[in-house]
């Protein structure tokens, strides 16, 4: 699992485990799936809530990151509206390094 540091550009995995046949508990909001953001800070390691929800240990603990997104980038067509941002707390297994942007 990649360890990210503040300033790293990351992409939230565009996965939809809810669509599968197995019951899941996911704490990555739909509106952030597949979106790119910047790591704001590491928040420490926590037992994985996706397992805790089903009575498992959630271990090994997963690194939790605070990730910053540009609000206007999340909601196209709602005006560029300045530099407003949205930050969310996301577990390491939901993040992947983002490709370099072109242009």
């Amino acid at each position, binding site marked *: 699992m990649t360890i990210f540091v503040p300033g790293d550009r990351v992409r939230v995995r565009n996965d939809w485990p809810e669509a599968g046949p197995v019951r899941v508990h996911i*704490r*990555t*909001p739909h*509106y952030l799936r597949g979106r790119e953001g910047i790591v704001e800070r590491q*928040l*420490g390691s*926590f037992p994985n*809530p996706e397992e805790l929800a089903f009575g498992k240990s959630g271990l090994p603990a997963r690194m*939790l990151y605070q990730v*910053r997104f540009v*609000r206007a980038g*999340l*909601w196209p067509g*709602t005006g560029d*509206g*300045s*530099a*407003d*941002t*949205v*930050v*969310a*707390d*996301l*577990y390491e297994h939901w993040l992947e390094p983002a490709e370099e942007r072109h242009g």
Partner: protein
Amino acid sequence: MADAHVHAHQDHPHGPDEHAPIAAHGPSPESALLERAIRELLIEQGVFTADDLRRQIDLMDSRNPAVGAKLIARAWVDPAFKQRLLANAKAAAEELGIDCSNAPDVMVLENTPKRHHLVVCTLCSCYPKAILGIPPAWYKSPEYRARAVKDPRGVLAEFGTHLPDDVEVRVVDSTADLRYLVLPMRPAGTDGWDEDRLAVLVTRDSMIGVTVPTAAS
């Protein structure tokens, strides 16, 4: 039946029936029964005792926005305390006798002239309960949760909060293991005020970030 009722009344205007019986607002009988069944099972299985439960309810009842206001007012008058609050909110709360030992981690977000924080939990209703108590109903509503991340300035305007364009509105979605509390900016015109007087200005809504405290209020 509904149609018959409407038609029977269509010939005269009438507003909401002031004499209607008070509707039940509590949980449905089914969820109340389910809660009781789960609670009794957990106690029977020794997961916790009835006394643990009572103590937890007592603790919850003792937490309210005045507790948070005390933290904020102290941070406004004591820069060293503010730094400790920003670095480790639970430890700083303990300094003021606020026991947060069994609560999730809390992070305090400092508003500045360039950045305003707005807290939401889009997934459910995560809230710094150990400090502020139970969240207001609107905080848990689907409308607030959906709109705070999409149109934060629109939401702020509905709370009467208008921020200049050059202030970054940073929406903080508490999606996981941290709870967030906003440290508002100290209002102008409060030089020389003591902590108690300042604390009165710190409202619940200003610690969620939907409003900004002012000395005029």
